[in-house]
């Protein structure tokens, strides 16, 4: 007890002595530290000139690729949050289910040679399976796990969502094994498209194109269809929407389905880029995509897209640009560090995100 009591006395003295400065000093220290690392690292790297233009373009293209995957996942978070005010913690794992189911078809196609003969048809088939699986699982989780918590406040819904995340991961682990499975890697994916003198790998182009098309479709659904309008109405004010005759239940199911479909596309894209599937693969991209959703202003569809792209690019360029410059060994191991720092900085300093303020103004 003694050291605890000592510390307690010390803390109370400290906080009554200068309550606000202690916290403010730490927060300002955090801000200044991050800015200093970014500025110092950037200058250091540019002065050293270790990386050529080709490498920067490579980083940028990879960042856009991975960022578009994050954006797809972030859309699911942001739409569900908009409608239910729930962080669907299991959304990353829904992406994993899509990647896994797509894997089985893709490896079948690879064995039969269909993936090499008509790649576009094969990719469409894999996408269809992945989207179907993710959509079904997303709707099922809503029905079985989240619906009973529709009107519960506090920690219970989030804890339940953590439980769903574990349950999905471990179910896939039990059913399909805990090993990492290698995704088929057809030859055409390794080709390089020359654009403006820089080479862009075909996989990355395919992923970006797929993600862009899906996002355009999603945007049209949200903006143009009746159901999308209802969804926006519910996320604006659920009670008023219900009074206007909108079936909130249907809208929630639709939202989960749409988010699940995007996660399915994201899962296939992620597996294309990293060439492997395993049961835990959804966790880290899920958390990062949540960060992207918050960064873009949670509840905002364009915000999630921008947030995802921004996060992807920062994460891809960051290790070389910020960390290498200040002389950190093996900066690429710290890629996740950059993403998580960004996530925390956003949560602490700008929880309403980039687009959030504008949305708030518009609503007021």
């Amino acid at each position: 007890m003694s050291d605890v009591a000592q510390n307690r006395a010390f803390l109370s003295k400290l906080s009554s002595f200068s309550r606000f400065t202690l916290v403010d000093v730490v927060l300002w220290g955090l801000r200044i530290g991050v800015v200093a690392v970014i500025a110092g690292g950037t200058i250091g790297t540019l002065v050293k000139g270790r990386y050529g233009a080709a490498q920067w373009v490579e980083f940028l293209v990879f960042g856009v690729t991975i960022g578009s995957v994050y954006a797809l996942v972030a859309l699911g978070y942001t739409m569900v949050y908009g409608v239910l005010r729930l962080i669907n913690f299991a959304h990353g794992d829904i992406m994993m289910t899509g990647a896994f189911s797509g894997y089985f078809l893709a490896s079948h196609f690879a064995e039969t040679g269909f993936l090499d003969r008509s790649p576009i048809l094969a990719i469409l088939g894999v996408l269809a399976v992945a989207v179907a699986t993710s959509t079904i699982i997303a709707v099922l989780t809503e029905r079985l796990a989240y619906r009973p918590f529709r009107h519960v406040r506090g920690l219970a819904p989030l804890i339940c969502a953590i439980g769903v995340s574990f349950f999905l991961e471990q179910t896939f682990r039990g059913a399909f094994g805990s090993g990492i499975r290698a995704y088929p890697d057809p030859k055409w994916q390794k080709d390089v498209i020359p654009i403006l003198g820089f080479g862009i790998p075909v996989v990355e182009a395919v992923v970006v194109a797929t993600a862009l098309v899906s996002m355009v479709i999603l945007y049209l659904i949200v903006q143009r269809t009746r159901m999308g309008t209802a969804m926006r109405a519910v996320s604006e004010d659920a009670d008023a929407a219900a009074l206007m005759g909108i079936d909130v239940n249907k809208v929630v199911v639709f939202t989960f389905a749409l988010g699940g479909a995007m996660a399915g596309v994201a899962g296939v894209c992620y597996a294309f880029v990293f060439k492997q599937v395993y049961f835990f693969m959804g966790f880290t991209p899920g958390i990062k995509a949540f960060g992207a959703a918050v960064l873009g202003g949670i509840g905002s569809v364009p915000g999630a897209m921008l947030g995802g792209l921004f996060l992807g690019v920062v994460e891809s360029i960051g290790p070389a640009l910020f960390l290498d410059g200040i002389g950190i060994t093996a900066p690429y191991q710290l890629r996740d560090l950059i993403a998580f720092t960004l996530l925390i900085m956003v949560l602490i300093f700008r929880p309403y995100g980039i687009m959030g303020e504008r949305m708030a103004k518009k609503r007021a």
Partner: protein
Amino acid sequence: MSAVSAISTVRLRRPARPPLRRTVGVGLVFGVVAVYIAVVGILPLIDARWIIVNVVSLGDAALIAIGMGAGAVVASRRSTSDFRTLAASCLLSGAIAGGLLALLAVAMRVLDLRPIFIALSPALFKTLTFGLGLPLGGVVLVVGGALLALLGGALTLAPIGIRKPVFIGLACVVIFGVFQELIQIMMQYGALIGALREALYSWEGLSPLGALAIFVVSCGGALVWANLLREPVNRGFARLSPTQQGRFKTARIAVFVLILAILPVVAGSYIGQVMMLVGLYILMGMGLNLEVGLAGLLDLGFVAFFAVGAYATAILTADSPYALASYTSFPSLSYWAAMPIAVIASIIVGVLFGVPVLGVRGDYLAVATMGLGEIVRVVVQSDMAAPILGGAQGILQIPKPRIGGFELADPVDLFYLTLVASAFAAYCAWRLENSRLGRAWMAVRDDEDVAQALGINLVKVKLLAYGLGAAFAGLAGSIFAVMLTSIYPSSFQLLISINVLALIIVGGMGSLPGVVVGATVLVGLPELLREFGEFRFLFYGAALIIMMRVKPEGLWPSAVRRRELRAAAEESDIDASQEASIFAAPPSPAAQPTAQ
């Protein structure tokens, strides 16, 4: 009045489904559960453990429980008391549940599912069809399911005087069968007990005769207790004065601690190891309980404090190039000197960890703390920190603690260290809970703004929650380091945070006995049933969902929480009755004013 209104709302909201559909639904749900445990691989795994040797395995027991459960649910939600309809619906639900399993068996025979679903092995097929091949085995599944459901339904409708002793008897048989290794080890002292063991157990497990004996004894015991002894004992206890009752409670706790202290000596070092792990999780659980249970700060980065405690101990005491003593003039400390420093280091990290997230609330706080925890792990694992913290290779050769010339090398010795630490921590947590600070935490948990308006210093109170919670985790981490004598960053995954969170939720948030119950159920049981180890996290995920839905207050809720729940239940009854009156009003404009 409230009970009547509650019933009426239920009817209003959920029009009674036709009995046939409901029966089919129950059968399907139980069938899906059975198919799920088969596909995920739980069934083949637990099938290897006998309850009664060569008669019933744990897998069979699971299937039997599913069949009887279907009947029990149908019977408990009956809409009629007509015996024939009831029996028929029980039979139907059980047949459907068994039928789904039979369908799985058919699918396994017809399609080649093995390359995709790794658990669907030929051995599983044999288990499912009882080695009888397809048409016959499937029929056995359907008929067996139907009969079991009938049995389950009959048991549910039996008077409680019969039902309860039968359940207790069955439960005792299952416990004695499943934990046979452990119980056999404990029963090797003395000729008389040895003879009893010989009578009950064969070499591999419970013999059929032994099972029967245990069933009869426990069943009879329960009957005698319920009919003859319970009344006088309760009356006798009520007659005692409050001080005597209090003394009785203290004596109960003392006996409990005494049993804990003796158990590893009697049951061998394996159980000592398991209990030590449970003790570590109890320590961490009590720490997180201060944060989540009392102060309402959902912290998913808790493992960071555990890591700080472990790494601080390692750096201060280890005999390795990463130890502080090897590259500075700082002396290499003994464990007893290092432990307080490790705890203080955790407190400092806890407070530093808390400062940036002071203004973050609710769901965002969970994600922010998880991010912080992950940052700690990424940094520790990276090459950047490798010169100090050893990187992915970790820090090796941490000496065991010594008392004089005696080295606490055995897991049982370390268990006693954990027990003492847990008891001390439990005392601190108990005092904290009932202190001014504890009440302030609860106020913050219930409503931050109101708490601040009442003059509670949020900054101080929250930082104390982080710091003190971290102290417990640091202590656990310090013991963890000497338990393993080497630490690696991969030991400090997010999974540990989730694990600790799961155990305090299962036990009951904000409840100290709940932490012990939760740690025993979620950490101890999977260790003892080693087959389950692989499915531990599935079990955790399911436990989180089910607890939140069925029993959000936990298995052993705290007294405060119990009071709150009772109040909330009354309130919701009032709400429900108001809602009912609104919904019950006919939608004609003339009637609306009266409804309002």
